[in-house]
């Protein structure tokens, strides 16, 4: 089962990460789910694939009352992001799911009805959880053509989906980045291959550099804290992306 770790807590406002299931089969990519709670409402970011649903559900139940879950946030349409949707709806049929308008007719193949989805326009949106504002930040083409992130200005935490993701080996499976130089090696191949557009990357780096971010929280790998947040943005801004070099 995954374990819940509190990243931020101030009164009734909190962020918890559900991560690191020791029993995860090696053929499944590991994922981080973030539970944001405020005033009796909760939102789960990229709730994961259907195979990890039992582990996520049990970890969430240990950390909070799952009945407070009101929203799901899908950064994009990949199966490791949102293929568990039908199972979440089995638990709570009135859950709402934020996603880019682009995937409105695609993600329902995983489950849900027309009432389930809240379309996010290309320029993003400001939403409320409890009474707390959260900003949906556009991150299109990073990597998906309809891609969104979530920024919490109160907590100064930023959910970055696949941006910042790292595919960590089992012996370096830390929850937080502790050695940036060592860690970024596990992120490099992923970003070179998955991130398809230099223009989108530049726009994103400029946009998030203006935000106050204490933690950058990706869907895979370790969480960047403090100075490592800007170090990551600087590193990413200089990385060659969108080029596939085939050998031979």
């Amino acid at each position, binding site marked *: *089962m995954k374990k819940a770790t509190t990243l931020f807590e101030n009164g009734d406002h909190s962020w918890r990460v559900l991560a690191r299931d020791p029993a995860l089969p090696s053929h499944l990519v590991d994922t981080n789910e973030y539970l944001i709670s405020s005033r009796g409402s909760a939102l789960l970011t990229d709730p994961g694939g*259907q195979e990890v*649903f*039992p582990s996520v*559900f*049990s970890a969430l*139940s*240990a950390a909070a*009352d*799952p*009945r407070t879950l009101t929203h799901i946030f899908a950064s994009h349409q990949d199966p490791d992001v949102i293929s568990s949707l*039908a*199972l979440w*709806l*089995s*638990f*709570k*049929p009135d859950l709402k799911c934020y996603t880019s308008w682009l995937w409105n007719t695609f993600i329902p193949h*995983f*489950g849900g*009805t027309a009432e389930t989805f809240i379309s996010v326009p290309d320029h993003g949106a400001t939403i409320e959880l409890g009474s707390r504002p959260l900003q949906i930040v556009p991150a299109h083409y990073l990597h998906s053509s309809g891609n969104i992130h979530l920024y919490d200005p109160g907590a100064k935490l930023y959910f970055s989906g696949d941006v910042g993701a790292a595919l960590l080996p089992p012996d370096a499976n830390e929850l937080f980045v502790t050695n940036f130089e060592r860690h970024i090696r596990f992120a490099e191949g992923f970003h070179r291959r998955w991130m398809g557009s230099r223009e989108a990357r530049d726009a994103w780096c400029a946009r998030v550099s203006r935000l106050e971010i204490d933690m950058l929280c990706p869907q895979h790998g370790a969480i960047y804290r403090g100075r490592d947040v800007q170090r990551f943005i600087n590193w990413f801004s200089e990385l060659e992306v969108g080029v596939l070099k085939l050998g031979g």
Partner: protein
Amino acid sequence: MTPTADESHGFGRVVALNEACKQLLARSFQVNLLALDAMVQSKRGGGRVRGFDEVSSQMRMWSRDLHAKLEQLGELSAEVVQRTSLLTKEAHVLRLIGEAVRSSGHPGAQRALDECRDARDASSHALAIDWRKIMELLSDLDQLGMMACVLSRSAMIEACGAGPELRTQLDHVSREFYANALSVVDILAEALKAMQQQGNP
């Protein structure tokens, strides 16, 4: 995949169980601390409160027993989530193949439907066994709650033997024991009610 009421209720039952376990765990910690404190206090009272010391020690063992049972429940709860997820997926496949059978009438599709139904029935049976184990554990917990009520009544009686200085303190502790014991019984009753509202397992 559109959820049915049964699937939704399966998760609802386990949530009711988990929330009760969290409250019971808090009671178990509280009684453990109270009992430790009571044991220290009764040592000060000497031979006159030896009985209270004994009851406090029993309460401490009780809180450990409660904790152990809750750990077992936690493991079973995770297993039930796993099985309910599987059952939800199987039920979905069954519905879809059922639609295929209705539209095609093909014997191959009917065979697939029968196999799926067998798999669903096997999962359903395994889930029922888990729920039975959970109900047995809940029944054990209910007895533990009753036992704690009796123990804390004994603590109240034993507190009367203490000298005037200590009596008020020990009386307060034994009332705290009793309040926690009653809470355990109440939490279990509420949990069972909430679980029944979600349908019988």
